[in-house]
């Protein structure tokens, strides 16, 4: 049992070839998931009980089941129905990448919606009262008071969720996608050198994670300029 550095140097470039796919999965499902999260949040805040319930059930189901099960239901499960195979969505759903993006989007949307809601609920009620007392309309309060403050409050939890999403993209390898993890698993199957391959890939993911944290840290610093007593 030894750690073969040459193998690391050989396999790293191969794995990094899958970086583009990992990044694509992260960015596309991350942005679509954010849109979905906002829609779910608006449904929950709509004051219409049926919209609220619908959103709550959705969130409950997608947060209560493993993401792997969701990926498998979409990739392996949906083609069971002829209606799906005949539909316009088939061009997306027959591609593993389309399925992975759909599953990741639906999953992260549920989590992020709860994070955003936490931010909205965290906004000091007194500020909204001050807005009302000044005659601001509900829409104005939402745009000028709730949104900027809730964004700032939700950001740390949101950055954690983006990191979770990055880690979930690795599950795309279970449905034949050649992302970084998928390539690594192929290499390990050939070389049977799990230490070298998986540890070096883990380091790549960690660097990616730290980069995401750093980026959000900067953004948070920018949004928090009003919370510092000194200039």
């Amino acid at each position, binding site marked *: 049992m030894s750690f073969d550095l040459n193998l690391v140097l050989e396999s790293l470039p191969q794995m990094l070839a899958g970086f583009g796919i990992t990044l694509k999965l992260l960015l596309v499902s991350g942005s679509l998931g954010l849109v979905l999260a906002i829609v779910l949040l608006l449904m929950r805040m709509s004051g219409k009980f049926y919209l609220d319930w619908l959103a709550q059930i959705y969130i409950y189901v997608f947060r209560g*089941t493993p993401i792997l099960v969701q990926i498998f*239901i979409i990739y392996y499960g949906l083609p069971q129905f002829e209606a799906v195979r005949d539909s316009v969505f088939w061009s997306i759903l027959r591609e593993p990448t389309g399925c992975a993006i759909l599953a990741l989007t639906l999953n992260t949307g549920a989590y992020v919606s709860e994070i955003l809601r936490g931010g909205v609920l965290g906004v000091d009620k007194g500020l909204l009262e001050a807005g009302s007392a000044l005659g601001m309309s509900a829409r104005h309060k939402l745009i000028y008071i709730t949104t900027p403050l809730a964004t700032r409050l939700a950001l740390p939890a949101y950055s954690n969720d983006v*990191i979770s999403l990055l880690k979930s993209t690795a599950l795309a390898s279970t449905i034949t996608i050649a992302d970084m993890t998928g390539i690594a698993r192929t290499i390990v199957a050939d070389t049977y050198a799990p230490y070298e391959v998986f540890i070096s890939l883990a380091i790549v993911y960690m660097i990616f994670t730290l980069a995401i944290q750093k980026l959000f840290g900067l953004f948070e610093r920018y949004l928090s300029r009003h919370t510092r007593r000194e200039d």
Partner: protein
Amino acid sequence: MDVLNGWWDDYFWGAVIVAKVFIASLSLMIIFGLLGAAAKLSDNRLAQKIGGAYTVIFRGTPEILVILLLYFGSAIALTALVQLFNPEVRFVDVPPFWAGTIAIALIVGSYATETFRGAFLGVNPGSIEAARALGMSPLQTFFYIRIPEMWRIALPPFGNHMLSLIKDTALISIIGLNETMFVAKQAITVTGKPFTMYIVVGLIYLGFSTIITLTVMGIEKYGNRTTVGAQ
């Protein structure tokens, strides 16, 4: 629903394995989390570094990589170890149950580290001072004041960690643990109904999540009986 006939008992035993993994990994997760928090809070620089590295590594690496590495890696390590004594042995198999259980306990334990650490620091220093001023010994202060207060702070995130654990058990099917995902796969090869079979898995997990959520809610309600105001 006829296709499910004959598979119910397989799903049941799969669910039993999920429950077993959950209980085993929950105990380990609490131990890892407490050790991690103790390391991070200690005055020893080395311990702080180790605690810090533990959280960075396991929060920054995809779950599936940790599971694969622990499974294949420990098999290789064990084989090498056994070969020292008996060179005849070709390969030692590691049970996926334990490789997977330890892997998800390590992952979620890294999150629990932060929860326990935050709870320890979140205890109102005034309560501690008051207890000391009343003449309580450090040990009494720890058990009667600090632990109960910590518990109340840690419980809500701890509930989320339990949900992460139960959902992460699904990933252990990747290394061949015969839990519900594995059962579904077998059932699909026979029946050709992937959607139905994976939906059953989803419902089983939803059931587990519901039980955990309700339990945590019950404990929280009990724990918060002293903090609900008169109004």
